[in-house]
């Protein structure tokens, strides 16, 4: 089987409110930046295009189709879409290339989350018979998960605050992030609870923006003369949509995906974890089997800026770019979808 490489990644600034810009206007700059960084003039330079977005965020059916206006799709291109985080658009593209149907692909994800009441918009991702009609919002569900974790002794409120502290501190080195700065654990714990046991800083900010990436076979990357990071393993696993049937304090699907992706087959220098809530980083870090030798979320992670439908792709792009820059040899990127870490994808990336 042919090996697949990530050759470029571009991310827009992560903003609380992108103002008058529409989705097409958000996508165009990152798509051309990712293509240009791969030495390509336009989208005709790749064999396949796949995007990730969610029509509920725009409140319009088939809204993702309008996103294609950003590409310049004449002559017609081969393209596809996942109603998920663009990390899964990467997965589809990866399979397409593995199967020999393409040698290269452009992947992009986008979201303007600011127009709606995001936690309630996300409640419509729940199963339509039992949970969605209850309007269980995403923050309350995460709070239920945090409570389960604290009560079972999996983690403490102090550890959650440490995650926030590290996120905001690391984010100071990332020009695209939304929330950054120096905070002490004591200072964070002194904040009032928001939806108990979560404090506001345990929750991700609402963010607008887009990201794009170019992947190709290793042979193609060499032909283009580009530095690259190799995807040495990629796997995703899903758990029941029924919260009551899961142990929310741990993540069995991350454990399985990590095992299949080969996380433990070598030292992991860096990890990017797509944990929108502070306690979820603790759950995922443990499920990935990472110890303190691995640097986690040097970008600041989703707590510093959470672009819906590309925060997962952002994790993969972040690890890939650090490997390409020579800052790490082997890294792991995690992406999640659905409430309370329901669906998880683990990608292992290595230097060439």
């Amino acid at each position, binding site marked *: 089987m042919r090996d697949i490489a990530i050759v470029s990644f571009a991310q827009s600034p992560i903003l609380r409110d992108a*103002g*008058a*810009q*529409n*989705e*097409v*206007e958000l996508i*165009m700059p990152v*798509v*051309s930046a990712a293509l240009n960084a791969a030495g390509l003039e*336009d*989208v005709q330079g790749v064999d396949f295009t796949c995007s990730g977005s969610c029509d*509920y965020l*725009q*409140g319009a059916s088939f809204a993702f189709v*309008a996103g*294609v*206006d*950003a*590409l*310049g*799709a*004449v002559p017609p291109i081969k393209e596809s879409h996942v109603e998920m985080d663009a990390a899964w658009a990467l997965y589809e593209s990866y399979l397409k290339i593995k199967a020999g149907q393409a040698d290269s692909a452009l992947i992009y994800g986008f979201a*303007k989350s*600011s*127009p*709606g*009441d995001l936690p*309630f*918009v996300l409640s*419509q991702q729940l199963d*339509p*018979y039992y949970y*969605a*009609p209850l309007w269980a919002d995403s923050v309350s569900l995460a709070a239920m998960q945090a409570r389960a974790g604290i009560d079972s002794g999996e983690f403490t409120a102090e550890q959650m605050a440490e995650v926030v502290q590290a996120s905001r501190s690391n984010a100071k080195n990332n020009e695209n992030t939304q929330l950054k700065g120096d905070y002490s654990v004591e200072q964070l714990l002194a904040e009032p609870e928001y939806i108990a046991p979560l404090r506001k800083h345990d929750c991700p900010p609402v963010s607008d923006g887009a990201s794009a990436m170019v992947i190709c076979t290793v042979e193609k990357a060499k032909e283009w003369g580009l530095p690259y990071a190799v995807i040495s393993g990629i796997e995703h696993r899903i758990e029941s949509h029924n919260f009551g049937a899961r142990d929310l304090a741990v993540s069995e699907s991350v454990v399985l995906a990590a095992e299949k992706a080969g996380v433990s087959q070598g030292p992991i220098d860096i990890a990017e974890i797509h944990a929108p809530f502070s306690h979820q980083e603790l759950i995922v870090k443990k499920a990935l089997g990472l110890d303190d030798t691995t640097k986690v979320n040097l970008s600041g992670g989703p707590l510093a800026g959470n672009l819906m439908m590309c925060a997962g792709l952002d994790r993969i792009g972040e690890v890939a770019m650090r490997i390409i820059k020579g800052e790490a040899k082997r890294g792991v990127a995690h992406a999640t979808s659905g409430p309370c870490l329901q669906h998880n994808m683990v990608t292992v990336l290595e230097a060439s």
Partner: protein
Amino acid sequence: MSEEKEMITGMEAPMYLTYNFTAGGATTRFLAELRNGKLVGQECPKCQHVYIPPRGSCAACGVPTVREVELTNKATVQSFTIVYIPIPNNPIKPPYVIANLMADGAHQSFLHLISDVDNADVRIGMRVEAIWKAEEEWTHAMENIQYFRPLDEPDMPIDEIGRLKNA
């Protein structure tokens, strides 16, 4: 045993979500001109196609459409449908004609009504002009134009509709 219960085969779960809609930078410029009674398209700097209503990018080239082009009130019927089925709350009584119209100088059609003509006489290539509402009724909407009506001009050949003149 207790009496048999009827099987539940459906449930109602209405959902309403509220959004702050933004049209986007390019469409906002278009709507602002519409409020002034002007049809303004945007031109692709690469292929020179003019979009109306503009969505901010040339869908063919993937580049922003920055330059604005004011269009006349004249247009050509690219295709049309005679609607016989009433739409709830629509004040227009069927049968009526809804058409894809190509404004002169534009290369992307938009939908609007055709009136002041027998439905049976509407045809592809027919020349039409916009009839605007009274100025005090103008808002940021295509409904500022009440409808399009036939012009006393010869039909446009089908392969010339929406084509670049120098292409």
